[in-house]
């Protein structure tokens, strides 16, 4: 089924030089071929989707396109001209810019400064800032994408979605460097956005097409198909084909990505047994109040997955952190298995068998430079100790067992966790709560953020498995679909209150629309 890119006839445009063309790009890392002869064509004024599992070589390819990675072989052509990209500046000079997956804005500067950063042009004369010019320059960029952000607002006072807009505005500045329509690369722009924000973003992406080419990377295949004209698929460092999105279905893409038939309906892949509703709930929350939430009531039974949905500012993240003792509460009572839960700190929560997977994996979830083994046993030290002493053997056996059980792909248990791919990192973080086998309540804050489909499915399977073994789970899902697919019940939060509860049994799932109505 592999389709060759070069021979693909273009149905619409006769044939102007492609905005960007990659031929046989090769990149080796010690022990691995990250890119193994990738071919890719980005036509002018199109939105090209790029899909592939983690490790397929997407991020290496993108980095090569913006000069952050020097390829070992192959060619990059920009508008019919062969180029060598040595740095971000080089790439920008050729009209290629990228919005990074993790936002690359300076939090303590104004939006305007961030937009023009590195290419201030007339905004800075002889090293002196001309604030009015700068504001005007930034405003022009923001107008292009129809954003109404105050250019002089400090970036860290903006919402995440607004910051994403600033990023796009910033990338569009590369127009100033080149007379041609730019190529904008969006790497996972939606992974942390709420559905409404995603809609805004898509509108902007479609507008971008009018004066630029866009490469759009996302793990959410439905999104890719929704916004892109064509989708190119990478697997194992090679291009395995491309499809016009009008004709494709997520399932087909997925099959191309993993190289075998699969089903898009991964949420429902393995439905756990229904929890026994008659039993007393494992977690009982009554009247929990804090800085950003009030009077939250919540019951979670053993083996049940309860999703909490809500827009930004609904307070659901804070509720989750409060249950883990990481956010102060002002009132309310939390009972876990009949015992009052001590919310004074994370230590107490851990000791009581509560586990928490934070949304910010890189800064809060894991300790990057430490090894997989040490990260995995960081919380449940007793699992690798005898008395107060660490037993390296015991740790090794335990960690190796979990590496195998969760099929974590790591060279060695002693490898620094930051060298693993996102999905494997997340599995280690999850394993941290499982090694001792005493976890009773799992709080998952966006556990699949930034993971590809393969890794997601594995996380879903793991969640199901844990629920099956009686763990009560609270899930703040990445998307409504995920919440619906995974949860047994869904609590809708808005303005710091739990407003509605929607049952979501298998076969009786609500639609996203039902939930959105409740959320606003």
């Amino acid at each position, binding site marked *: 089924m592999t389709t060759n890119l070069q021979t693909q006839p273009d149905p619409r445009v006769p044939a102007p030089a492609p905005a960007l063309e990659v031929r046989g790009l090769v990149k080796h890392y010690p022990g691995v071929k990250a890119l193994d002869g990738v071919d890719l064509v980005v036509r002018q004024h199109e939105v090209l989707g790029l899909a592939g599992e983690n490790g397929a070589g997407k991020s290496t390819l993108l980095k090569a396109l913006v000069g952050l990675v020097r390829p070992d072989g192959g060619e990059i052509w920009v508008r019919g001209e062969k180029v060598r990209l040595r740095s971000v500046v080089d790439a920008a000079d050729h009209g290629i810019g990228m919005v990074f997956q*993790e936002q690359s804005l300076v*939090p303590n500067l104004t939006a305007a400064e961030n937009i023009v950063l590195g290419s201030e042009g007339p905004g800075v004369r002889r*090293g002196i*800032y001309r604030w009015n010019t700068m504001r005007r320059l930034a405003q022009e960029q923001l107008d292009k994408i129809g954003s109404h952000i105050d250019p002089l607002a400090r970036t860290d006072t903006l919402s995440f979605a607004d910051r994403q807009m600033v990023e796009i505005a910033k990338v569009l500045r590369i127009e100033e460097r080149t007379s041609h329509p730019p190529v904008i690369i969006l790497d996972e722009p939606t992974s942390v956005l709420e559905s409404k924000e995603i809609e805004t973003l898509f509108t902007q992406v479609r507008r971008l097409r009018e004066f630029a080419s866009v490469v759009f990377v996302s793990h959410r295949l439905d999104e890719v198909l929704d916004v892109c004209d064509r989708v190119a698929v990478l697997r194992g460092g090679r291009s395995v084909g491309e499809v016009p999105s009008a004709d494709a279905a997520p399932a087909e893409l997925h099959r191309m990505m993993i190289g075998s038939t699969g089903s898009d309906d991964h949420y429902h892949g393995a439905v756990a047994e229904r929890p026994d509703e008659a039993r007393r709930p494992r977690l009982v929350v009554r009247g929990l109040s804090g800085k950003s939430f009030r009077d939250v009531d919540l019951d979670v039974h053993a083996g049940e997955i309860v999703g909490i949905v809500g827009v930004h500012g609904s307070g659901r993240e804070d509720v989750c952190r409060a249950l883990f003792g990481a*956010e102060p509460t002002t009132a309310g009572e939390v009972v876990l298995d009949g015992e009052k839960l001590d919310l004074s700190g994370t230590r107490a929560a851990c000791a009581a068998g509560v586990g928490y997977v934070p949304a910010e994996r890189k800064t809060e979830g894991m300790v990057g430079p430490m090894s997989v083994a040490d990260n995995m046993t960081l919380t449940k030290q007793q699992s690798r100790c005898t008395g107060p002493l660490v037993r390296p053997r015991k740790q090794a056996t335990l960690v190796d067992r979990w590496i195998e059980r969760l099929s974590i792909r790591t060279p060695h248990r002693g490898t620094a966790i930051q060298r693993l791919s996102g999905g494997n990192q997340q599995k280690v973080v999850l394993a941290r709560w499982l090694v001792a086998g005493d976890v009773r309540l799992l709080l998952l804050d966006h556990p699949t953020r930034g993971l590809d489909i393969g890794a997601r499915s594995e996380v879903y399977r793991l969640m199901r498995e844990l629920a099956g073994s009686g763990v009560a789970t609270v899930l703040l899902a990445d998307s409504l679909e995920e919440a619906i697919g995974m949860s047994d019940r869904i609590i809708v939060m808005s303005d710091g209150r739990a407003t509605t509860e929607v049952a979501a049994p298998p076969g009786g799932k609500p639609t996203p629309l039902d939930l959105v109505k409740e959320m606003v």
Partner: protein
Amino acid sequence: MTSPAEADAGSEVVNAGRPQPRRGISLSDAGPPIALVVIFGVFAVLSPDFRTLSNVQNVLDAAAVLAVVTCGISFVLMMGSIDLSAPGIMGASAIAVALLVANNRNDNDFGLFGVAVAVLLGAALGCLSGLALVVLKVPSFMTTLGISAVGLGVATLMFAGVQPNVTDPMLEGWAVERFLGLAHLTWIAVACVLVGVLVQRYSRLGRYAFAIGGAEEVLGLSGVRVAPYKVAVFTMAGAFYGLAGVLVTSQLSAGLVQAGKGYDFSAITAAVVGGTLLTGGRGGILHSAVGVLLVTVLTNGLVQVGVSPYWQGGVQGLIVVAAVAAAVLPQRRRNQVTK
């Protein structure tokens, strides 16, 4: 990216560095000025000598040198680096200027040119520590400590056993002559603070220093080469220390190797008390200026109210900790990172 905890902490502060209507003054910004007023008030009540006009002049005059040093160090702290080179650079520039203007050791009489050379010497030494930071990738803590030793060595070489005494009327005049009740030195310091504020708000160097403290890696991704700006910030800080060395020489009418003794920690203290974070990305020259006044008022007030010399350092330390605690406590949150 910074962790959300840090970003949140930052977001509570509306930064002053732009012509934008302020969205209310946050506590961490208002804290140091309030502390200054409170401490000033306490001393004024306790000691009648303290609240005289002449003493206020005295406090401002006494703050001059520290203010200039703090101007320099603030930019370094804004970047998230640290600078301990003030004693060495000030010593070198103090001896240099004393030997270049009219003095008792040689026949030089270069006047303002001599001052400029001394400031340039400071800048050169500052540049060296910046270069060591970006080229050798040695943490600024060590490079500046090393440069401080180098500066002291250079100063001792130039000192050569005989105290250079300044006879230059201009330089001596700076400390003695007054304008609007304040010594010329003090006006020079005020000018430095103004220059500092302008650099911080309106120059690329100042804004980038701020940005480096906020998210250094992002600048790289935006195609900004950070290294030259880091070197430039250390060079500018060196120039400020150089000028401070000149000011000390003017005050003492003599070039001393020890001209900058203790200014490293007092300047850091002043900057931190004023609300500059050691992790970078927050604070500014005006914050630091308030911090300088706080520290100077404390030193002066403790003498005025007659605290035993033994206890003065201790009381000062206690008040600094209390001042920072008062500023930090309201923002204290769970899972907050404090280094």
